[in-house]
């Protein structure tokens, strides 16, 4: 069987065991994590909006996204968006204009937001919507990726993703175009 053949060849040919290095987190060089997150997100094509409460999110959504099909699984926004989508065929989310989901935490160095299946409702939601909005607590912005994985720890999930900005491509002569397949725009609501 190939399994045994491969494992035997690897065992025979591998070099002498060397130890794993200690992984340090290199500390926090940012005096203002919100400002750092916002500045990186802006350069990669996303928008950060600081809000004090859920009403401000509702207002922002009404001003910018009125008329679009909206989905969310966030209780404070329940009356402005659909709920039934959570159990529907994921293909039926093709026409979602705005998905508002929660991000567990964000990373200041690269403006990535950690979202797992539980927050996504359906796995495809953050990828198929025309605009993705993620709500993140300001206190949940961590400095670097090492802090992020320390935060995730050994927790189990079926699927999780770091999401940094809108979908993009530069495959045509290195010109940056937003909205290759997934969201054409991405908003991060940073809430107190």
């Amino acid at each position, binding site marked *: 069987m190939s399994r045994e053949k491969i494992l035997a060849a690897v065992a025979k040919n591998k070099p002498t065991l060397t130890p794993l290095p200690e992984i340090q987190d290199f500390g926090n060089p940012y005096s203002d994590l919100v400002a750092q997150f916002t500045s990186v997100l802006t350069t990669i094509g996303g928008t950060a909006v600081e809000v004090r409460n859920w009403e401000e999110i509702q207002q922002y959504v009404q001003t910018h996204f009125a008329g679009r099909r909206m989905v969310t699984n966030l209780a404070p926004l329940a009356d402005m968006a659909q709920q039934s989508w959570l159990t529907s065929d994921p293909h039926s989310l093709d026409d979602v204009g705005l998905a508002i989901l929660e991000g567990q935490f964000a990373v200041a160095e690269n403006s990535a937001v950690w979202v797992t299946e539980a927050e996504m409702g359906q796995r495809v939601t953050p990828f198929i919507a025309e605009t993705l909005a993620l709500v993140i607590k300001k206190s949940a912005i961590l400095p670097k990726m090492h802090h992020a994985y320390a935060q995730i720890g050994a927790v189990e999930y079926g699927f999780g993703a770091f999401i940094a900005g809108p979908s993009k491509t530069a*495959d045509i002569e290195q010109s940056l175009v937003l909205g290759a*397949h997934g969201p054409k725009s991405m908003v991060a609501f940073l809430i107190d």
Partner: protein
Amino acid sequence: MNHSEAADKFNKDFDRTTWHDETLWWVRQKRDRAAFAIPEWEDLRNMASQIKHNVLSNLDTYLIEFEKNAKANGITVHWAADAHEHNQIVLSILKEQGIQQIVKSKSMLTEECHLNPFLVENGVEVIDTDLGERIVQLADEPPSHIVMPCIHWKKEEIGVLFHKHLGTPEGCADPSTLTLAAREHLREKFLTRRVALTGVNFAVAETGEFVVCTNEGNADMGTHLADVHIACMGIEKIVPKRKHLGVFLRLLARSATGQPITTYSSHFAKPREGQQMHIILVDNGRSRQLGREEFRNSLKCIRCGACMNTCPVYRRSGGHSYHNAVAGPIGSILAPNLDMTKNADLPFASTLCGSCSNVCPVKINIHEQLYSWRQVLTKSGHSPTAKTIGMKAMAAVLSSPSVYRFSGKIGRLTLSNTPFLVNNSLNPWYKQREMPEPPKESFGEWYKKNRK
């Protein structure tokens, strides 16, 4: 066609070669800015290299651990000794499902295994969904770069291609319009295909999960809408622990394109409810390379492409001139392991300037390995003829002081009186290079005259 013939052909179009060169250099500069912004960059490279070294030194144990945890997560694990077996496994999964159409996101491993032509021969329609890959697929070409598959295409040419295949207006060469057309074309495929195939950037032994990085979101659009997800990975893609991802994700995108991270770093741990998830662990020569002491470090590669973007030879010869799925400096180390005869020319397609080793995020000694391959290939009678004659002559000259002195004189005479003589097919170094003004006398001659 060997590398230098293909490079010659590429260089016939001077303007295009310059454009290609400058585009890649621009990407290299973006990488520099991203790397220099991280004070601990060198520490990260060291850590990444050490983690990968530990992986190689304990790979069998990690593979077994990964298999156990992935299975516990509900993933079906397959093992493939070579490209043929890998392709057969993919086909058998499709047959079991009764499926003849798939969407695919980027996987250099499947390029290495020539999966697409194999599936097409077996009646399966394959749609590459990465924009760059779709472009070269429509043009019936392989990718020319592992991160930017159609870096050698101009937008006007893509406009003509899309006009023909996707019905965009004639003469349209606007990147936004063309991308939007591809988005609509591919969205229909995502919504209708039931099997999605992806590559793997990292697989975590500790948890049995694997990570796929894209900017476009095409891997996610494919897999989360499909009933079956097939992920293909080389056995060297293992990392021991989840926390090690923090090191590699900090290095990968910064090295590749200068981005702080790819838009999506997707961690697949369990199949979606009702979905099937398969992972194929592929050897295809990797265990053999592991046994070659001088070359085993090449298995640390995380496929960021930085060594290509910085390589003066790659930039001015184009990815296709390497006639291998992975081009550039790293491809030239990996390819002879796959086929020494066919790829004997590749380790010679380098100036050994060392720029590749300097940018490599996992600190592979790329240029030293290229040099070692030259020795191995020459000793075993595999090296390309023109360079062998030139090199043998050079070796003879350098090993004998009197011949060295004499040949220096001849060299100076030849260059000043008959420069065309140096520009012959036995001197590949002359091609595309300005030969320097020869000095009137060598240092040796000058020293003899002036030492009194």
